[in-house]
């Protein structure tokens, strides 16, 4: 099995899907000649030509809408936002057009479009370029929301997203592009809506997705070393639809849970996870579920401030000690 980066895994998914289905095309700022602001589309213009790798003006609202129109008449557009922060300029088309077209048409007009690009905080990019907006999109019925953590998941989930007949919001981790992992040579796809246990354990469930999977795994290492606590790490992979079964199965085993996310606390993804678990696993909980999120502030620029605002393994450790009643 080859070890490749998250970036190249996404690139492989795009290339293979474009080879498989000539209705798939990529559109966005800098995706063609420049090969992507993050080089996810490297080599695609050369292979597929300018009619399938379309450079656009710097105008998110238009090219999101153009994707909606193209999806209505038979193409499968993959719309790249340079980052999800810029997608806020296009949220009208994502929420008002893409998410609602099937329903408003009485089931007549499917919307096979993928909106993808990096989300979450990178390093010292400031408040307007460091947002994890999963919860915004997951709130909207009609959208599917995917946020992979590893190269393997990134490739398998992007392929499923492109094949899906519903609009999919696909949030890549900006800090994950250079991370490496094993990706098989042979064809595979990961169904949307399936979480994965990234590390098995018996004492506490750490729920995470995207970049916070690494945070949870580091915390799990330290919990094992420092406290003898076996943490189970559950990677949501898809935010909507949410794989409640996998979450409940884990919490029924561990009886304790901490939910970690890069987004903000208020109305975050974790709030939904907690709601599902209190209903489906109430009698299995030995402690209130705690959440670790970004601090409830716009992301600050200074390195020390930024570090303080981001969810960290230390915060996860502290939360686990509390749900395990090791400290109050």
């Amino acid at each position: 099995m080859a070890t490749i980066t998250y970036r190249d895994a996404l690139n492989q998914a795009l290339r293979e899907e474009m080879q498989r289905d000539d209705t798939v095309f990529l559109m966005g700022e800098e995706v063609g000649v420049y090969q992507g602001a993050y080089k996810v589309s490297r080599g695609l213009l050369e292979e597929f030509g300018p009619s399938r790798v379309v450079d656009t003006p710097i105008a998110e609202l238009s090219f999101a809408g153009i994707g909606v129109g193209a999806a209505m008449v038979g193409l499968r557009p993959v719309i790249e936002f340079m980052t999800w922060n810029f997608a806020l300029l296009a949220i009208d088309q994502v929420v008002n057009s893409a998410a609602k077209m099937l329903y408003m048409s009485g089931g007549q007009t499917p919307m096979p479009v993928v909106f993808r690009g990096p989300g979450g905080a990178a390093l010292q990019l400031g408040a307007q370029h460091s947002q994890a907006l999963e919860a915004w999109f997951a709130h909207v019925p009609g959208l599917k929301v995917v946020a992979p953590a590893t190269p393997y998941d990134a490739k398998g989930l992007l392929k499923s997203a492109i094949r899906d007949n519903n609009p999919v919001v696909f949030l890549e981790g900006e800090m994950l592009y250079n991370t490496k992992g094993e990706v098989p040579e042979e064809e595979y796809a990961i169904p949307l809506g399936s979480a994965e246990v990234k590390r098995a354990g018996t004492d506490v469930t750490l729920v995470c997705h995207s970049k916070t999977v690494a945070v949870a795994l580091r915390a799990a290492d330290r919990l094992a070393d420092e406290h003898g606590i076996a943490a189970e790490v559950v990677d949501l992979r898809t935010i909507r639809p949410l794989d409640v079964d996998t979450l409940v199965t884990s919490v029924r085993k561990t009886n304790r849970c901490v939910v970690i996310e890069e987004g903000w606390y208020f109305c975050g993804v974790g709030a939904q996870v907690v709601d599902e678990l209190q209903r489906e696993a109430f009698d299995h909980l030995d402690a209130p579920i705690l959440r670790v999120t970004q601090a409830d502030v716009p992301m600050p620029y200074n390195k020390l401030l930024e570090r303080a605002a981001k969810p960290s393994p230390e915060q996860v450790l502290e939360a686990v000690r509390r749900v395990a009643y090791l400290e109050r």
Partner: protein
Amino acid sequence: MATAAQIPPIPAGLAREDLLDLYYYLQLTRALETRLTNLYRQGRVIGGLYSSLGQEGESVASAFALADGDVLSPLIRNLGAMLVKGAKPVEVLRQYMAKRTSPTAGREMNIHFNDLRLGYLGQISHLGDMVPVMAGIALTFKLRGEPRVGLVYVGDGASSTGAFHEGMNFAAAQRVPLVVIVEHNGYAYSTPTTRQSALARLADKAYAYGIPGVTVDGNDVVAVYEVTRTAVARARAGEGGTLIEAVTYRRRGHAQHDDQRYQSTDEIARWEANDPIDRYVAQVTRAGWVGSSELEGIDRRVQAEIDRALEECEDDPLPSPESALTDVYVTPSVTEELWFRRLNA
């Protein structure tokens, strides 16, 4: 009436049958909206009711310039364009009455329904948003090498939006086959165009995109047809888009609930005297192209058709409450056979 020897040729490549068809769609639009207004007052039509009274001419004539396979995106006052493209009065009545049998199964209101096979996309409500969406449809035609054209209607108000600008800019830069009709009807809800734009001619916005901009008398049916036909031919030939400003007037309020006190009675009366259907009838009968009795026959046919449509649907069932919960997602979400290949087969 003129004698045969004195009859001037019909302009714009129109045949006599076309003139009768145009009249049929003009009257169908007006009569259907009149019937909807009555039903609204009786409480049988719910939701907002938007009248295109005084604007039917440009809606019908522009859509009439399209061919089968072309796709248009109407605004709330483009019922006429949808009827030309094949939408049926019974569908419109069912939509307004929120029947289970409506094209959207009671999910959406008024003319918010689409039929991409017939060639209309009536589902985008937010002003200006339909410009990039239609640019995407026209881009698809271009990428596939299909000789099809998109036509999108926006109002003077929508031409102030960022979505309009971004969509126009993309369409022009990519030379997609998209014709944009800006209906300059005087008001965006209650705001007059003079407070929307400093331009005297909204067609001048085309200069910003590097495409032709044409202003046409929107109440002159034949002129609108001719201008649109030229723009459509240009788009179909791969020469890119055109912005057409159709100058017309909204004689009713924004919707039935709007008392339009901001529009003076003099102003409304002036435009009533400039009614597109009256002008069209005068033009085609005075020239001797069609006879008054033929038009009267069409009037009777239109009324009978609407009576029949209402009879057909007024007792239709309402949707079951549980049906509110379906069609949020396509299931199964992945199909072996791609849906659009079936659609286009």
